[in-house]
Structures are given as structure tokens and as C-alpha cells.
């Protein structure tokens, strides 16, 4: 009896804590979620803003919170989606872009390369301001999923897939 009461209480707290989450569509297979730490002061980005972040043109979330880009290594589907939809570049162009950016001192470094979704989410949790891309179904609970143009993964209008 006591266990049942605790379970109901826990579910209620979770529901309150998650706020509008029940209203969000379930993540669709193949959608790529953008994950950040809960303390990143952004919940939603327009696609143009997302591009600016990923291109290194916007390098701070807030005055004291630097953006750290985490991108999967070549061969991962997450990377293919990010390059095709956000960067709109080939692999070679992507490399060329970041070499030039660093050469011109427009960025201190290019995106950090990560070799698995687990590493991506671990680093996203550990590094303040980090932003990572993972299969929406694998997005961990502790990280915030950003909306793009007001929609979350699973929505028909969600662009990263």
C-alpha cells in the first residue's frame, strides 16, 4: 500500500516536473535530437539560429556560457543528417570550412569529434554549453532536447531526420 502511494506520488512529481512533455509527440525513429544541458538558457532555436550556432557564427549561449559543438565522426548517421540539413555541405567542404574558420581566427577550434552517442551525451552532460546530436529515441533523460522552429523530434515539421 505504502509502495503504491509512493509510486503515484513519484509519477505526479515527474508529471509536474516535465510540464508540457506529455503534449509533445513521441520521438520518431530516425529523428535526430539536439541535446544540451538543462542550464543552457535556450529551449527553442529557429533553423537559421541553429545554423549560426553550428557554423560557429554564434559562439555563446549567454555572455558567460560558450557553445561547444559535439559532432559524430564520419560514417555516423547523426553526422550525415547534420551535414546535409544544417551545414548543407559535403564532408570535404565541412573540413574545409572549419580549417578556414580556425585559420582566420574566427573560431578557436572546430567541433569536437565524438565516436558514439554515449560519448556525445556524456560530454553534453559534462561540458557546460555543449550541444550534441543523437538519435531522438536514445536521447537521455537528464539532457534538454531543443526545439527547432518550435517543434520537437517526432513532429512532422521537425527538420533533422
Amino acid at each position, binding site marked *: 500500500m505504502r509502495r503504491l502511494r509512493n509510486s503515484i506520488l513519484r509519477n505526479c512529481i515527474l508529471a509536474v516536473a516535465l510540464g508540457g512533455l506529455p503534449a509533445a509527440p513521441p520521438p520518431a525513429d530516425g529523428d535526430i535530437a539536439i541535446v544540451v544541458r538543462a542550464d543552457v538558457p535556450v529551449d527553442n532555436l529557429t533553423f537559421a539560429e541553429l545554423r549560426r550556432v553550428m*557554423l560557429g557564427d554564434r559562439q555563446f549561449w549567454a555572455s558567460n556560457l560558450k557553445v561547444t559543438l559535439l559532432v559524430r565522426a*564520419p560514417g555516423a548517421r547523426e553526422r550525415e543528417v547534420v551535414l546535409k540539413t544544417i551545414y*548543407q*555541405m*559535403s*564532408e*570535404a*567542404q565541412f*573540413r*574545409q*570550412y*572549419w*580549417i*578556414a574558420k580556425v*585559420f*582566420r581566427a574566427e573560431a578557436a577550434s*572546430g567541433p569536437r569529434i565524438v565516436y558514439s552517442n554515449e560519448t556525445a551525451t556524456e560530454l553534453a552532460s559534462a561540458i557546460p554549453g555543449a550541444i550534441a546530436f543523437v538519435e531522438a529515441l536514445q536521447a537521455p533523460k537528464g539532457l534538454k532536447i531543443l526545439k527547432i522552429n518550435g517543434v520537437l523530434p517526432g513532429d512532422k515539421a521537425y527538420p533533422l531526420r
Partner: protein
Amino acid sequence: MIGTTISHYRILSTLGSGGMGVVYQAEDSRLGRTVAVKFLPESLAADRAAIERFQREARAVSALNHPNICTLFDVDRDRNDGRPFLVMEYLQGKTLKEHIDGAPLSLDELLELAIQIADALDAAHAKAVVHRDIKPANIFVTTRGQIKIMDFGLAKVTEAAMAADFGGDASDPSQMPTAVFDAHLTNPGSTVGTVAYMSPEQARGENLDVRTDLFSCGVVLYEMATRRSPFHGNSVALTFVGILHDTPARPSQVRPDLPAELDRIIFKALEKKRDLRYQSAAELRADLKRLLRDTDSGRISVGTEAATGSRSSVSARAAVRPPSGPQPAAAPSAPAAPTRPSSAEYVVTAVRRNWRATALILACVAVLAAAAIYFLSGGSAMNSLAVLPFVNVGGDPAIEYLSDGISESIINDLSQLPKLGVRSFSSVSRYKGKDLSPAAAGKELKVQAVVTGRLVKRGDEFRVNVELIDVAGDRQIWGSQYTRKAADILAIQEQISREISEKLKMRLSGEQKQRITRRATEDSEAYQMYLQGRYFWNKRTLEGVQQSLDFFNQAIQRDPRYALAYAGQADAYALLGDLNVLPAREVTPKVKAAASKALELDDTLGEAHTSLAYARLHEWDWTGAEKEFKRAIELNPSYPTAHAWYGEYLIVSGRFDAALAEINRGNELNPLSPVTNLALAARFYYARDYPRAIEQAQQTLAMDASFTAARVLLGRAWLERKAYAQAAAEFRKALQLSDGDTNDLAALGLSFAASRQAAEARKILDQLKERSQQTYVQPMWLAVIYVALGDSDQAFDSIQEAYEDRSTWLVYLKVDPLFDPIRQDPRFTDLLHRVGLN
């Protein structure tokens, strides 16, 4: 004693004797190796406590594993008379005392030996082992010039025993000052020679720490420098007075060719107060290394001017360096010294007078040179060598770069030798991981000798096994093993280089010897970063150039005076231009700045002159570029990049015959390098010899099918033969291999335009323009597509854009067949003029 067997050691002969006992050469019958057995004084045999202390100490000493410390294998007692004995590494060579008594040591040798001594002390002190009796008689110089410090820890044992004899407490050295001091003054067994190396605190019998060894080391250094003791009293008492109170003459006063910095180092080691002395052997070693580096780079002035503190523009190296080749023109204001024709000028004049003399003289020179090489090499001429990539035995990916890097570094060092053709790294890298015998590889590479190596990492140590193999006889000429800490990788490379050259019996002049062993940095981490940078640079890919730049930058951060790292940085920037990552107007100034910085630090660096030549070429300073290329080749004739890039210079200048000779020279050094082979294909292409260009490009692709630059050149040659399908196939393959590189996409567009598929060509033009919004697109690609489409105005617009970018392609205008359709246009003539190509 001779012929007897103690334990399992059969005594063979007497090696020497001294205050610490008699040393014998013996054979270890269990392991079948030759060892040295040292019996300690009989006075110790009766003292059980002393023996126990001795054994405890010996255990600590046996834990010292350092290449400059004589290894202690075993400690035991003779079953018959109970005398303790030590079993040690058997060394061949002579003591430092004997070495000093011979010819005076050169500054280089002095520093190199001193660094090894300091290194050994550092390793021992790190394990809390103090020698207490550092003196030339306890330091051995092997036949290979390696230092071995002997008798570590023994002085403590004997001193303690002596203190005990005098009634002191051996466990507390502070309890034995008077006894020991008096003992040294009165004991007839003590000699001036031994006392002369004592530190003041040792002489006073105070508690000792590692700094006592540093004082003794200072005395040894003084003696190495001057061949006399700094404290040479006629009696033990007077010697003590000298140690405690006197300041010896400066070494440079005794030997004026020594630098003042050496005086400072030795005097710091000889500080009476230990708090003012070097506090660690590492500190002493760092100063010695810095001096060696500065001496190598010619920055330390020597001689009486240096000793008196006056500035001298004549460096140690410059003073002995022979005049070398063409120098930059003197400033107009420089006073012109009266000159007379050099012997070379006499020869030239004579040759001009009689051309028949030319043939005769050249023939004589050739015969004499061949004879010289033959005789200098002891009867077997050896003038070609390949250093195969060292094998990373454990396959540890973290040290993969190191196995390549050591090989490459040795190649670079040996390439400095005259009369020795050393195959370039890119040639030999083909053999990496191949199961081919060294002799077979040597035959393929057409060399007489092959160097192979195996690298194993265990903990923080590297072990390197090296062999020099005679290709014809398939036999080992020489082999050696080096075990070093990771931080000592520089020493391994230097030692291997030197020993290989010795085996090749090249008669090196002083400067050549310095050049081969010159260390560009004393920071081994910086060196490792440089090696990693070169490793990635050699990949010639976008990713490779990015990583190489990271490593070169890190190397520079570690050692801001590391000239070679700046040359590497310049070369990485140059590749950014060549690969069209960035416009040349952004890249070339950085190439120039990095190359200039390298030359400021070391103006004898052929690599840096090559980088500067590249910058000058793309500044359209044609005269300056050629001068730098020639200087680079003069300084480092075996540097393949210098030949390849100078060959390119000659191609774009339209001097195809000279280019062919230069590129062939590069290919001799690099017979298996796709890069130099492609340079040959390019020479045929720009000389309009398309069949041979195609053949050569195909040969290049047979070496490396993923080399996209070769596919693009092959496609361009097919286009000139109007074989459009073959051309398009090559461009598509390149595009696929490069993951969508813009250059390869543009090449495909060119093939569409040339084959009259205008719509397809324009689609690609649109894609290129779209790409140019985010990443650099070489405007010359647009220009050549427009030329092929017959749109001259658009072509000239793009060329103008390229001109503003100072595109690297512009230097090809004079010879590039893609511009033939607009070559007669006055705008083209004007362009050639502006680039300095008319």
C-alpha cells in the same frame, strides 16, 4: 684468482684495482655472458652490519635502470673468505680520467658527455640514491661514446663503515663529521685524487644530499674543460682548504675557446654553499643542453671576446664553417673587400677558354670523387641507403607516429651527408607493414644498404632495435639496441644517426658532423609533436593538413625557438593554398612569416628556404623564389620537397628540360612517392606530351589509387586527347574518393564543358557559386569552365577575381593548356605581364 670460479662466475682476467677493491673480467656460466666482478675491501668482510648495509644499498642501486649507469647484476659473498663482491655490466672503453688525459675534449663532446652524466645523476637522485664519489675514475666512456657511471651507492657503504670504525653512528651521518674529516686528513689510504672531488659539506663531514654529487660533477666538468683540477693542493689538507675557501680560475681563462656560459654553469655547480648551487641534476642538465643547442645554432660566441663579455658577431660555428655557395647579395653599403678569383672561378675561366678541358676536368673530378668515396669507405663504396619505416612492434596506435617519425628523422639527418643518396621517407613508407625482407626492399629501392628498426614501448620506456643490412650480401653490418625513457627520444635518434654514419665510414668534416647530429630542439615533447605534424602533413589531405598544423603549433608553443617546427607550419599553410582551402592572398603571407621565423632561428635549414621559396613564387617574385630554391637544395640536396617544388617552378617558367632534370632528381630520392611521380606527370602534361602524362599519371595511381590529384591530372590529360568519357570517369572517381571536394566537382564541370554538355557544366557552375558562399572556391576553376564553354568575358571576370585572390593557379598561366583558347586575347597578355610571366 685468475681461472678460479666464484659462485658461477669464472674469473678470466684482472681489469683494474683501486681503493674500492679489485675488478675482474669474468664469465657468468649460467647466462653465458661476460661480466665485471668487483671484490670489496677485506675490511668490510668482517663487519656483518656493514655487509648488510652494503646489500641493502646494492638492492637500491640495482633498481637503477638507466643507460648511463653501469648496471649492477648481483651482490654476493665469496664462500671461501666471505669477501663481498659485486657483479656488474662489463664495459669496453676507458674511464673518463683516461679519456681526459688523452686529447683535449671539444666543446661538443664535453657537453654531450656532461649531459649524460647529469642525466644519470638525475635518474639516481630521483630514486634517492646519492653517489657521493663522483670522479672521472668512476665514470666510464664506452667505445660508443656512452657514459656509464660506476659504483653508485658504494661510497655511502664504505663511508659508513669508516665512520663506524671511528665510533660514529653510521645511520646518522651528522654524527660523523670530525671523524670522517680527520680520517681524510690522516688516513694514508685517502688520496688527493679522491679528496679533490669532494663537496665542501662532504669535506666538513656534514649531512649529505644530492647536491654533493652536483658539486663533484662541477669538479669533473672543470677537469673535462681544462684538464686540470680546480682545487689542486700539494697535500690533502691544502686540497681541503681549496675546496672550502678558494675560487678556481675560470675555465675560459685556461682555455680561451670555451664560452663564458660554460664558466657560469661550472661555477654554479661549484658553489660552496649548497643553497646557491644547482638544486638538482635536472637543472644542471637543462643548462648544459641549452648551451649545446645554442652552440649548435651558432648563437654562443666564444673566444676571448666572449670571455671578456664583449659582443662578437663571429659564432663558434661560423668561425669554422667553410664558405658555402651563393649568398644573398651584400647590402650596397657594405664595404667591398678586395677579392681575387676563387679556385672555382679559375676553373670556370679555364673551361671557357678550352671546352675540351671541361670534359677532362669533369672526368678527373668524377674519377677522384669515386675513388675518394671508395677509399674513405674502407674499400667498399657505399653511397646509397634506405631507412625503412621502423616497426611498431606492439601496434600501439599512440606511438605509430613515432615509429614513422624516427625513421623520417634519421632520413632527414643522413640526407645531409654528401655523397650518400638516402631514399626519402615517402619512398620507403610503401614498405610499412609489408612482409618483405630488408634485402628485397633494398633491391627494389636500388640501394646498397638498408636500415631497419623495431620500436617497443613498455611503460614509459622505449626500446629501439636497429640493424644496418648490406643488401647485396643480405647480411647485418651493424646492429644495436637502445632503451630510453620516452623523454629521451631525441637522444636515440641522434645516437642511431651517428652510429649509422660511422658504419658507413663517411669521413665527416666538423660541420657535417655537427649537422648530422644537430638537435633542433632540446624539448623532446616538441620534437614528438613535430614528428606527428610531419606524419600528418605527408598525407596531403584536408584532414592531414589540419592535424599537422595543430601539431606544428603545439611544437612551437613548447619550444618557441624550434626552427624546424616553423618550417613545418609554413609548409602546412602552403598546403592550405595548394588544396584551395583558402585564397593565396590569405595563406602566402603566413607561409612567408613562418618560413622567415624559421630562418631567423636557423638560416642553414634547407626546409625553411624551400618554404620561403614557395611564398616568393606566389608573390610572383620569380628571381627571389629561384634563389631560395637553389639555396635550399644547396643546403639540403636530399630534401625531396625542395626538388619537387623547384621542379614546379621550372615548369611554370616554361623551362621544361630543367624541370625534368629537377623532378627526376626528386624521383631518384623518392622513387615510390606518388607526389614526386605526379610531378613528372605534370611536367609532361604542361609540356603538351599527353601520352606520357597519361602513362605517368596512371603509374602514379598504381602506387596510390586514392590519390585524387593524380586522377584530376589524368582526367585533364584525357580531355586534351578529347577522350571525354575517360576524363569524366576520373573526375567522378576523384569526387567520390574525396567526399565531395570542390576541386573535383569543378573538374567534372570542366569535362562537361569540354564535351559540349553545356547544361550540365552550367549546373556545376551554379553549385560552385553556391558553395563559394560558405567555402573558398578557386575562381580559376570557374574560369577554365567558362573558357571551355567559349565564354571569354565570364572567364576573364573569374580570372580577375583569381588575380585579386593571388590564386596559386596564376603562376601556371604561361603553360596551362586550358587557357590556350584565350591565349591570344590582349587581356591574357596583360595578365601574364601583371603576374610577371611575360
